[in-house]
């Protein structure tokens, strides 16, 4: 795992020679601009620290200059390749053309109701109404929309569905917090408050105060399949995911395709259109293939097993079509099942007449799924929200999914 070592400048490189004579501030600010251009958030405060750092290590040793920037300007391992590229271009005076091309970014346009959308919509009045932020759906219309299959939505319906999704509540079962809170009939003495109250009585602890353990929301992790086969549904489901991320605390969201992309930060906004746009930019493999097994493995390795999925409710939104090895998917599902509190699979195809989980991936994953629910319509998503909130009487996990699968209580 010494990938970044290769990116470090070799000793033969002339270091910062071409920039000699320039003050460090100037060099730092220019380099920061290059970094921003490469897509790295570089706040001015850190640039100042970088100037200080350059002052300490000097400009003669290329390796020291490299690390001075790495330690003051880069804050996530994912950003290291970006920094390395920018560093080579700026300090090595390599023209960007000499570098290996960046992976091509594939973008899709989400059905956002932009002002500059195609103006050939026949009914202008309808468009205006649609843009109205206070638009309220009449009950009947909402009811039709609720039952309608996502795959048959047009752009306007997609947008209307957003408002209904925002009304969903994703509370979820709480778990005991480490912290206590005051309670009249609590079980633990609250010495701090007893003490304060006793002062009023001249030091006599007449009134005893009590506390009890507080409650906290369990983490909710949403894994959305954005592969080609899911395309009719992933646009609507992304809105659902966005509503969940913006609607409560402790939610994490990932996109699964040919690779795993974390989209929590992008989606965390009160403005759904901006959030969806940012997520669309971030994800590079829209409507490509699916490698569910590999993606879940990456999730388990990078995030899940480290703590994010422990004791959490994990929801996978996918049709289960997988080009990868079903054995790998099964193995990773088992692993995930062991550390989560509840593992929910949402399959938009479940409602299809005659549907049986025949997709090999789905069949491999099913033994480890606690709740297998539909996901084709708003009504189904409401049901899903209820499952997450623990308000349905859906089956709880009561026996291990396989003989080898032992769980800690």
């Amino acid at each position, binding site marked *: 795992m010494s990938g970044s070592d290769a990116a470090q400048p070799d000793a033969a490189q002339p270091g910062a020679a071409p920039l000699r004579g320039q003050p460090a501030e100037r060099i730092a600010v220019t380099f920061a601009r290059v970094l921003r251009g490469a897509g790295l958030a570089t706040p001015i405060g850190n640039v100042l620290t970088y100037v200080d750092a350059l002052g300490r290590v000097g400009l003669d040793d290329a*390796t020291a200059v490299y690390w001075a920037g790495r330690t003051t300007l880069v804050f996530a391992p994912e950003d290291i390749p970006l920094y390395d590229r920018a560093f080579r271009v700026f300090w090595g005076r390599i023209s960007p053309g000499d570098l290996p091309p960046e992976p091509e970014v594939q973008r899709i346009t989400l059905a956002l109701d932009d002002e500059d959308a195609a103006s050939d919509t026949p009914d202008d009045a309808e468009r205006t109404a649609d843009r109205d932020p206070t638009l309220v759906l009449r009950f009947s219309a909402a009811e039709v929309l609720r039952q309608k299959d996502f795959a048959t939505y047009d752009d306007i319906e997609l947008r209307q569905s957003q408002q209904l999704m925002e009304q969903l509540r994703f509370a979820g079962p709480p778990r005991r917090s480490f912290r206590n809170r005051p309670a009249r009939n609590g079980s633990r003495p609250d010495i701090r408050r007893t003490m304060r109250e006793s002062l009023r009585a001249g030091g006599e602890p007449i009134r005893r105060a009590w506390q009890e353990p507080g409650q906290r929301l369990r983490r909710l992790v949403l894994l959305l399949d954005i592969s080609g086969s899911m395309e009719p549904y992933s646009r609507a489901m992304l809105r659902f995911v966005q509503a969940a991320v913006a609607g409560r605390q402790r939610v994490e969201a990932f996109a699964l395709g040919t690779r795993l992309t974390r989209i929590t930060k992008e989606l965390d906004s009160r403005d759904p259109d901006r959030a969806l746009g940012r997520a669309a930019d971030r994800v590079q493999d829209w409507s490509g293939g699916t490698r569910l097994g590999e993606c879940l493995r990456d999730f388990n390795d990078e995030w899940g097993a480290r703590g994010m999925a422990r004791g959490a409710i994990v929801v996978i939104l996918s049709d289960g079509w997988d080009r990868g090895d079903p054995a790998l998917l099964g193995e990773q599902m088992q692993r995930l099942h062991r550390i989560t509190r509840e593992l929910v699979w949402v399959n938009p195809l479940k409602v299809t007449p005659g549907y049986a989980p025949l997709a090999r991936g789905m069949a491999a994953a099913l033994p480890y799924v606690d709740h297998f629910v539909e996901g084709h319509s708003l009504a189904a998503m409401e049901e899903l929200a209820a499952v997450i909130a623990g308000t349905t009487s859906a089956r709880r996990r009561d026996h291990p999914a396989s003989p080898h699968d032992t769980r800690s209580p």
Partner: protein
Amino acid sequence: MTLTEDASGAWTVIALDAMAAQHASRRNLTVMPAAPSSPADVAEALTRHGYLPDEGLATSIFLAVALKRPLLLEGEAGVGKTEVAKVLSRWTGGTLIRLQCYEGIDASQAVYDWDYARQLLHLRAAEATGEARGVGTAELENQLYQERFLLKRALLQAIEHTGDSVPVLLIDEIDRADDEFEAYLLEVLSDYQITVPELGRFSATRPPIVVLTSNRTRDVHDALKRRCLYHWVEHPDFEREVRIVRMRVPNVIEPLARQVASAVEALRSLNLYKPPGVAETIDWAQALAVLGVSELDERMVEATLGTVLKYREDQDRARQHGLAAMVKTAVERGAPVR
């Protein structure tokens, strides 16, 4: 920490412990020079105290000390993040003050708390001697909120520390704490000040060296990250790992150290649930040393596999992959370089 005449037994012990530790550190260790002059200085000093940093880590530590900024270390479990703080305290001779974070940690566990039991006792005593009647409630309350009733936790200890050497504050696994705690921490790490409403402000005469670690179970807040210097700790490369093993397990001979490092490198490439970290490499070498092994063989690897791979599935995968082949490569690589 000062001893007071009416200190209870527990207090006395804690205070004496801390004082003894300080004395020991003053006696035995060379105190860090005012400031290291280059990253190479840092690397050399840490190596002397039993830690082999790579160039990047040495530069980060150098800058953190020189610029008086906290250092945030992220990386896989077992790459030696926590060890950095320990070696820093050995080097500087400063006390290591460790704050282990967990979900729900709050000010009373991280900063300070009042010793309510002793406050109550004080009240009862005042009452029994009739002193309570003589003074007013306000005066009684003042008596209660004195420094001697204050239980100083890690953060306050690090801030109000007065001594020759700068303490090292280790804030371990910050990602396990909640956002609110992070926000509070940001405040403390910006001004190195803590206010206790009843007593006033404590501020550091010399800010501690602060090391934060995170396993990335969630993102640390950007504002806190911006306050810190950042270093992503990687697994060491082969040669460095050999040197680490030799340094930490001196009774392992060079060829065996090379074999172990090579085998661990092979294991890391197997797509395991938990690839072995440096900590596991050291454990493994130690186990082999205790067993009196001088050269790796398949039987010994099988017998000691549990010290490197802690999941049954990982062990199965390693076996499927062939321990014999792994041992063969390791032995070849273990041969001294000519």
